[in-house]
Structures are given as structure tokens and as C-alpha cells.
């Protein structure tokens, strides 16, 4: 595994504030354009699209952090993972609130109707719901309380959220599938990477078990990379 590039480490204290600000810019732009009347003549559209798109992008960014850390060996990516995840939840919640308030005015009857009849709403709401426990257990204290192993297991729900998010997008477009399919391909690669890592790890463990069951003299060093 590559050793962490040192030159980044001196700017370590800047990493999180910078990332925090960058991830907020789409929202700040939206607010700015809203107040300066620079959105389209149907602002509901812009707000819905922007918050929805950035939810998906933040999920993709979150899913990219671990592979990037493993490939580059730079631990900075790990430190950004939680923030991207929480931002995904933030944008997702704005997206949901836009629907509930700007689109439906909290008319629960209509909302219930959508939630039972319309598959793109169902799958979108599922995607958001699955992020809720992840956001709630994202603090240090909650992570400790849940416990490392369980926390890891729980947070694999983000894979389902990513898939649901892509399906939500696929099912809502009218004709041109190019954009949702692009996100679908990216998510497929990111999840595919994890499958490869998992299968390799299992294979390595099995080899290791085999090696340890033969007489010690014949055992070879095991490559335990994940």
C-alpha cells in the first residue's frame, strides 16, 4: 500500500472546511439565484432538479471515498466520507421537503396517494428513508454506541440508497434516459468494486485457511490485501 503523500498533510486542517464549503455551493447558488430571481419561470423545477441531482452526486462521491483511499492510500478520503454522506442526506432532505411543501403543500392525502400509487415516488422515498438511520448514527458518539462492526453493517444501506436513487431518476424522466443511465453506470462501477474486493477477500481468507491446515513447514506467506 502506498504511503500517504506528506505534502498534503500540512494542509490537513484546511481539508474539512474546504470540502464543507464546496459541498454547500450548489445550495448557496440555488439560494442566491432564488433571491435574485435568476431561476427559471418555474422555480419549483429548478429547486427539485438541483436538490435531487446533488443528492445523487453526493451519494456517488460518498461511495467513491473508500475506493480512492484504498487505491491512493491517502487517509484524507476517509475523513471526507462522513461529510459527503451527511451532505447526501442534507440534499435528499431538501429534495423531499421541496416535494412535500412546494409541490404538495403538506396535503397528506395526496402524498399518501403518491406513496401508494407511483413507483418513482416510492423508490425515491425509500432511498431517503434508508439514509435516515445512517445520518442519525453518523456522529462519533453514535458510532461508538452502535459499535464498529454493526455500524459498518448498518451503513452498507447506502448501497441500497444509491440503487434506489438511480431507479428513482430512471423512472421519472419522460424520454431521455442518458443522464440516469450515466449515474447508473457510475454506481455500478462503485458497487462492482466492492463486490470484487469482497470476493477477493474471501478467496484470500480461504487460501489462508487452507495454508494453515497443512503442515507448518509448507505454509507460505499469505497476501491478505482486501
Amino acid at each position: 500500500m502506498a504511503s500517504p503523500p506528506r505534502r498534503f498533510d500540512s494542509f490537513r486542517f484546511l481539508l474539512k472546511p474546504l470540502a464543507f464549503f464546496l459541498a454547500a455551493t450548489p445550495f448557496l447558488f440555488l439560494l442566491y439565484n432564488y433571491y435574485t430571481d435568476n431561476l427559471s419561470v418555474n422555480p419549483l423545477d429548478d429547486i427539485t432538479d438541483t436538490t435531487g441531482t446533488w443528492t445523487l452526486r453526493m451519494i456517488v462521491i460518498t461511495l467513491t471515498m473508500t475506493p480512492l483511499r484504498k487505491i491512493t492510500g491517502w487517509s484524507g478520503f476517509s475523513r471526507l466520507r462522513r461529510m459527503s454522506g451527511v451532505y447526501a442526506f442534507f440534499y435528499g432532505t431538501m429534495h423531499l421537503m421541496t416535494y412535500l411543501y412546494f409541490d404538495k403543500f403538506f396535503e397528506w392525502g395526496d402524498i399518501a396517494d403518491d406513496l401508494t400509487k407511483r413507483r418513482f415516488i416510492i423508490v425515491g422515498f425509500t432511498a431517503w428513508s434508508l439514509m435516515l438511520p445512517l445520518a442519525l448514527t453518523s456522529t462519533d458518539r453514535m458510532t461508538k454506541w452502535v459499535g464498529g462492526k454493526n455500524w459498518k453493517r448498518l451503513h452498507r444501506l447506502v448501497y441500497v440508497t444509491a440503487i434506489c436513487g438511480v431507479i428513482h431518476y430512471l423512472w421519472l424522466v419522460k424520454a431521455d434516459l442518458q443522464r440516469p443511465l450515466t449515474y447508473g453506470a457510475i454506481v455500478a462501477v462503485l458497487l462492482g468494486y466492492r463486490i470484487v474486493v469482497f470476493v477477493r477477500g474471501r478467496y484470500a481468507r480461504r487460501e489462508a485457511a487452507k495454508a494453515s491446515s497443512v503442515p507448518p513447514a509448507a505454509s507460505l506467506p499469505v497476501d491478505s490485501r482486501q
Partner: protein
Amino acid sequence: MSFNKIPRVPSSEITPESQYYTRRSWLGMVGLAGVSMVSPSLLGGGVVPPQDRWPQGKKGPNDTDEKPSTFKEITTYNNFYEFGTDKSDPEENAGSFKPRPWTVKIDGLVKKPATFALDDLLKGLTQEDRIYRMRCVEGWSMVIPWRGVMLADIMKKAQPLPKAKYVAFETVYRPDEMVGQRRPYLQWPYVEGLRMDEAMHPLTLLATGLYGKDLPNQNGAPLRLVTPWKYGFKGIKSIVRISFVEQEPPTTWNIAAPNEYGFYSNVNPDVDHPRWSQKTERRIGEFGKRKTLPFNGYAEQVASMYAGMDLKQNY
């Protein structure tokens, strides 16, 4: 939440509440004021230069007396997939489209099939300004001051044969000028159709302009169909061919998603789109939602054409 925080809007911009706002929209506005998120764009109008606001009021029997949408609203927020799928794409990408010179081919079951230069086709016909509601299948609406001729007048010129039962329309195919046509997310060219009586109906226009000017490219220059009691996508744009046929002609959105878009596509609050309700609509420029009316409020004029038909089957 305090009621005296309702945003101040010039009284001329306020439309009678009973008529224009449903309860929920009013609640929405109070809520909006409560969190002090107020923007002119959400509250309708804002500061609109007078030349961009067509005078409100009925001039002819077919006009609505509702407040016309602004020129900007009508020309920057369009569905014209030939120029891209985002609402802003048509305005951004239609600049290099050439609506002149233009010819329209009239063929099929007519006495004399012919290709007309647009000016010859329109010669001798009265161009009228008409203020119509326009309801998009996506759940938003506008009020548009069209300029155009009655399709019925064009049909008289074409002299269809008695065998003709439908009229089929076709949009120009110019992938070099229409970026959207370079990718097959819809089947190009765009095609639409009407039953003979729908085509002959006095509300049915072939529009050549809006706001008293020639049609902007993004609105379907130089010639487009307007059927105000149907969803907007029936209003095929940049028409190059009108054919009279015996069988119900294929229509683009019906080919793309037959369970979502039917041949008739009459505005109907009781028939949901599979992915959303059609009961209400958002008028562009307004924050609240309005109730969608059967046949988009034109039931009196058009409902008789569909007497005895099951409109849930024939959506």
C-alpha cells in the same frame, strides 16, 4: 406564524382569491411568508415591463379573460424536444433554426395534393389573436396570446375527400439545426394527429405567432398546432406536412409510452398520468396550485365531440 407578514404585492398583481387560489395555495403562501422566503418569481409577475405583458381581457368569444403569462415565461420555458429535453434548451438551442423559407405539404385524401409556400397557404385567411389557456401534461399551465388562423380555414383550401377521418401532422426533420434530433430519445420526426371534427373545431388554430409577433423558434416557428382543450404536447411544432388519412395516425408520445399518453390527450383531472395526478396544476408565475378543469375549461365548446366515449379508456 403571523398573518401580517404576508408579502406585499401590488394590488394590481393580486388575482381574486376565490377564483385563483385554492385553500392549499393560500396556506402555502402564509407558510412561505412565515419562513420569510419570498421571491417575486414565486408570487406571480413581480416587475414586468408593460410590453412584456399582453393586455388582459376578452376581445373575442374564444378568449379567456385570465391574465396572460409574460413573454419571458412563454419563451424561456418550453418543451420542444427537438432542441433538447430541458425547459431552457429550446430557447438556448433554437437560435440558428431557419423558419424561412418554409413550405407545407398537404397530401393524402385530398382533392389536390400540393406543397405550399407558407405565405401562399396563409393567403386570404384571417390572422386572429386569441388568448388561450395551455395545460402541459406535466402539471403546469400558462395563458398564451396566440396569433394564427383556424385550421378549419386551411382545410377548406385543401378540400379533403369524404373518406378522410383523421388529420396527421409532421414536424420538420433537420438534425443539423435541431440538436435533439441527433439522438433518438423520441422517434423523429415528431408526428401528431387529430380526428376530423377536432381539426375542424373553431378553437383549433394553426399558430403563426404570439404576443402579436411571429412565433419565436422555441415556440414552434413558423407554424404550429394549438388545441387548448388538449395537453400541450398535442400542439405539434414547426409543421411541414399535413395529411388527411382514414385510420387514426400514430402520435409520437403515444409511440414512446402508450400507457402514459393516448391519442386524444384531452385535459382531464379525473385521469391521472401514471406518474402524477392531473387534478391540479401550477400556473407559471403563481405559487399555489389551481384545480385542473375538464377539457382545460373548454368543456362547453368541445365536450359534445366526445359524447358517449369512455374518456378513461380514450385518454
